[in-house]
């Protein structure tokens, strides 16, 4: 057996979903009986069989990645409930094992996966999907790259064909539920609870989720960071559309025109709003050069 073959067979066995009671599955991914498959690779000793020895690694693998995913998606867990979240996480991680050296990226494909698997999204899949998008944006905002902020020197040739780039750590989200408030509520509940009162915490989370489930409300959000802390900034629809247009590379003139076309506000009021938005975005340092572009 080569090194590669051993590593493929061992990884296949330990990364296979655990059975009930968190034991190694009866069958290996290649269809063989797990006992035979593992017995060919791992030696027994006087206390443990090959399967029991591999099970130490398999449990450690699953507990580690399940914990990591739960840490990054507390809001989703509150929405679907702890048991359903574990089912969801096991299914997701079975289908989408980590492809990154860092656990930080574990949830990068969860939003797309949940779109394709609404059966795991609980009673209110829209609420669950909104929360996943918010929580992944939070991860990105926490340690995502920051590019050089556009300064006055970059704006000397300001004209209607000018294009902008948004800081990579800023994510714009159009959501059907106010999951920002729900996420804050879930975080507050978690901060205030002691280890001894897990059941009470889950009960309070369920109550908060029920309240938010009954109150759909379209919101426009920028998830970003200031001074190393993550913030959720609510925006008006017009502000969101303009920023989204600019962020996706629309020339400034076209992006502004589309705001005027869509708005029913008086011209002067809208012009004032746009000035205010640009002023806020500049202050937040959201406009930047494209990656690798020098000044």
């Amino acid at each position, binding site marked *: *057996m*080569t*090194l*590669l073959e*051993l*590593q*493929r067979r*061992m*990884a296949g066995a*330990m*990364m296979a979903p655990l059975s009930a009671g968190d034991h190694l599955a009866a069958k290996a991914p290649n269809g063989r009986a797990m006992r035979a498959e593992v017995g*060919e*690779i*791992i*030696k027994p*000793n*006087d*206390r*443990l069989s*090959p399967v*029991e*020895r*591999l099970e*130490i*690694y398999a449990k*450690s*693998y699953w507990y*580690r*990645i399940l914990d*990591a995913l739960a840490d990054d998606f507390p809001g989703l867990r509150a929405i679907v409930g702890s048991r359903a979240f574990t089912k969801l996480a096991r299914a997701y991680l079975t289908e989408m*094992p*980590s*492809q*990154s*050296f*860092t*656990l*930080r990226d574990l949830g990068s494909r969860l939003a797309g996966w949940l779109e394709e698997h609404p059966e795991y999204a609980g009673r209110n899949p829209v609420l669950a999907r909104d929360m996943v998008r918010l929580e992944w944006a939070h991860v990105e*905002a*926490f*340690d*995502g*790259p*920051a590019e050089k902020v556009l300064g006055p020197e970059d704006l000397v040739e300001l004209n209607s064909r000018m294009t902008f780039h948004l800081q*990579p*750590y800023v994510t714009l989200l159009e959501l059907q539920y106010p999951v920002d408030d729900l996420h804050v509520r879930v975080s507050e509940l978690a901060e205030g609870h002691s280890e001894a009162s897990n059941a009470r915490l889950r009960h309070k989370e369920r109550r908060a989720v029920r309240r938010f489930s009954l109150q759909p409300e379209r919101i426009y959000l920028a998830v970003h*960071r200031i001074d*190393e*802390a993550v913030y959720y900034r609510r925006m008006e629809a017009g502000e969101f559309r303009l920023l989204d247009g600019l962020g996706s590379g629309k020339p400034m003139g076209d992006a502004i025109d589309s705001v005027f076309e869509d708005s029913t506000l008086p011209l002067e009021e809208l012009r004032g709003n746009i000035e205010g938005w640009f002023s806020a975005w500049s202050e937040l340092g959201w406009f930047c050069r494209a990656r690798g572009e020098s000044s």
Partner: protein
Amino acid sequence: MPANRFNGRSDYGIGIGLRIPHYQHIFAHQPVVGWFEIISENFMVDAGRPLAVLDRILERYRVVQHGVSMYLGSAEPLNREHLRRLKKLVQRTRTPWLTDHLCWGSVDGRYTHDLLPMPYTFEAAEVTARKIREAQEFLEIPIAVENVSSYAEFHMSEMTEWEFLNEVVERADCGILLDVNNIYVSSQNHDFDPYAYVNSVPAERVAQIHIAGHSKFEKYILDTHDHPVIDPVWKLYEHTIGRVGATPTLLEWDDRIPSFSEVYAEAMKATRYLPAPAALAP
């Protein structure tokens, strides 16, 4: 501490693992610590709070990088993106040497995020040594590999763990991060003499030592880093120091982390076994 070419000829004493629950204490009280060991992967990010914290630490303390996912023993090639990020961090921290594990953890681009044991074969030694050499060349810094705790042994192994370690480090011409607790844990799990292991290690290649606590179960011992160091591990540490000389030593405490003061006090127990000048302060 005696220096060698595998720890950048530096004279670091006793260090402590930098962990989030201690940040507040460290920034508020600025304790005297010889050096901090950081988990490289926690800081291989583009920006944000992790790097801001690291920069504050670097203003005051010496840092050594310890990695958990280079997977030098995986059959697949080194992850270039990982190496690029690691090098960027090396340039930031100016770590005199860098450590990672003698293990594998990824295959076909899928990551287990675990430190999986190697089959002790000549093929595995050659693959691993080649990857260590490549990494050393790319990172332009000495690398020391750490022996891991293990719970499984392979039919295909052709030598003992310590023979494999020697085979790899000689072929790669790299250093060793000797984890005394891991030797103890594996010796209990696989019924070998931990002193035979320590006695076989090439003393001149030992760049650093790890000590830690573990958890004992009915049929095996698990390397949990959530307890103080037990006496048999201190005895093995004493024997190791007697053999390799005073060496930069790091206490690992990663789970159920107590106060900074408790971790500090536990780490300082190592001074009992070190020659007098090998104190903590830089």
